[in-house]
C-alpha cells in the first residue's frame, strides 16, 4: 500500500482541496483531519482492502506533514483520528518519530488502540515494549492475528511471560484465548 494508491482511491473533490490547504499551511490540517470522516465517509474503500475512505484521506493528509504535526494530530485526535494516525505511520517517512505515539496507544485501555499499535507500525518498537503489548492483547482479548510479524518476533521471553499468564489463569480456573495457546504450542515446537 502506498500513499499514492490511497490518494487515487479517495474522493478527489474533497481531497484535492484539503491537500492544497495543507500544503499552503500545515496548521490547517487539524480541522480537515477532524472532519475527514464526515466528508469522505466511514465506509470501506473500493479496491483498497482493509481501508476506509476516512482512513485513506487522513493518511494522505498526514503524508504532507512534518513529524511534529503528525504527532500533534494524534495527541489532539479522538479515537478514530488516533487509529488513523497509527494505521498511516508505516506509510510516512518520519523514522521513529511515531514511537511515542505507539507507547501512548499501548497505555490505553481501549483495545482498538492497543491492537493498532502492534500493527505494521510496531516495527520501531523495542522488544520489551512489544512483548508487554502482546501480553496485554491476550489480557484484553484482542485477537493475536492483529499483531504484525507475531511469529517472527515472538521470543523465549514472550513465551515465558505467556506461560506465566497461563499458570495464573489456570490457578483461577480461567482459560487462555485459543490463539495464545496456539502461539505457545508453535513456539515450543521450534
Amino acid at each position, binding site marked *: 500500500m502506498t500513499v499514492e494508491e490511497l490518494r487515487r482511491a479517495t474522493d478527489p473533490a474533497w481531497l484535492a482541496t484539503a491537500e492544497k490547504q495543507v500544503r499552503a499551511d500545515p496548521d490547517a490540517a487539524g*480541522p480537515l483531519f*477532524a472532519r475527514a*470522516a*464526515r466528508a469522505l465517509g466511514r465506509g470501506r474503500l473500493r479496491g483498497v482492502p482493509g481501508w476506509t475512505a476516512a482512513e485513506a484521506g487522513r493518511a494522505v493528509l498526514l503524508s504532507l506533514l512534518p513529524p511534529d504535526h503528525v504527532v500533534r494530530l494524534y495527541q*489532539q485526535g*479522538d*479515537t478514530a483520528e488516533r487509529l488513523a494516525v497509527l494505521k498511516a505511520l508505516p506509510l510516512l517517512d518520519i523514522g521513529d518519530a511515531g514511537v511515542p505515539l505507539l507507547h501512548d496507544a499501548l497505555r490505553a*485501555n481501549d483495545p482498538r488502540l492497543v491492537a493498532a499499535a502492534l500493527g505494521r507500525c510496531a516495527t520501531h518498537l523495542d522488544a520489551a515494549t512489544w512483548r508487554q503489548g502482546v501480553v496485554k492483547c491476550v489480557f484484553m*482479548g484482542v485477537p493475536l492475528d492483529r499483531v504484525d510479524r507475531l511469529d517472527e518476533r515472538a521470543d523465549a521471553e514472550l513465551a515465558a511471560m505467556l506461560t506465566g499468564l497461563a499458570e495464573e489463569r489456570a490457578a483461577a480456573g480461567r482459560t487462555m484465548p485459543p490463539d495464545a495457546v496456539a502461539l505457545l504450542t508453535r513456539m515450543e515446537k521450534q
Partner: protein
Amino acid sequence: MRIFDPHIHMTSRTTDDYTAMAAHGVRAVVEPAFWLGQPRTSPGSFADYFDSLIGWEPYRASQFGIRHHATLALNPKEANDPRCRGVLDLLPRYLDKDGVVAVGEIGYDAMTPAEDEAFAAQLALAVEYELPALVHTPHRDKASGTKRSLDVVRESGIAPGRVLIDHLNEVTVGQVRDTGCWMGFSIYPETKMSPPRMVEILKEHGLERMLVNSAADWGKSDPLLTVRTAEAMLAAGFSADDVDRVLWRNPVEFYGQSQKLDLSDVEAPEATFAGSSILRGGS
C-alpha cells in the same frame, strides 16, 4: 422500548449503571461537559476531560451496546475562575470532532458578568460551528435566570430551534415554550422533577420540542428515571408511539441538527451487542 437519554454524565457512573441502562432499553446517551464535585484549576484538566468524553467514555458505553455522544463547553460555574478562561480557546478544535453534537452546558449559575461573557462567546461558537446549544438553567433564582438566558439566546442570533433550555419545571416551562426553543426536564429522585410531575407537564404542554433526561451525575440521581418516566407516561394513557417520540425521536431530532449524530450501530434492527468485538465503539 428504546430510550435516548439526552443529558447524562456517564463519567460519574459505574459499569453497573451501564448494565442496568442497557437492560432497560437505553441505547443512546449524550453526555454534556459540566462541573465536577471538585472545581478544576486549569485548562489542562478540561482538555483531559474533553478527551475522555470523545475517547474513553464512548468506548466504555459501546461495551454495553450504548451509543455515546458529547456536548462540550466551559460550564458557567467554572467560567468564574480566571484560571479556567483558557478553556474557551481550546473549544474550537474540539467542536470539530465527530462525537460532539452540541455546545454545552452553557448558561448561568450565579448570573455574574464572567458568566455573561462565557455564555455569549459560546453561543457564538455554536453558530460558527453550526452546532445546537444546550443551556443549563440555574438552580437558584431559576425563573429570572431562565428569562435572562432566553434574552441572551435571542441576542446571539442562533435559531431558537437549535437551542435546548434544560432543567425546566412547572414554573419555567411556559416562558420557554413560546420562544421555539426545546424544553429539557431532568428527572431526579428528590429535586428538579419527578416522573408523575413530568407526565402532568406533557399533558398540559404537549410532546413537541420536549426532552426528558436523567441528568444523572456524581450526586443523588438515577440513570433509570428516563425509563420510569416512560412507564408513567404509559400508565397515564400516553401511547407507545408518544413515549418513543419523547424518549427517542425528539432527542434524535434535536441533536441530529449537528449533522454528526451517528446511530448506525444501535438503530439497526439486529443491533445486539456481541461483547467482544474490538471494532465497535463509536466514531
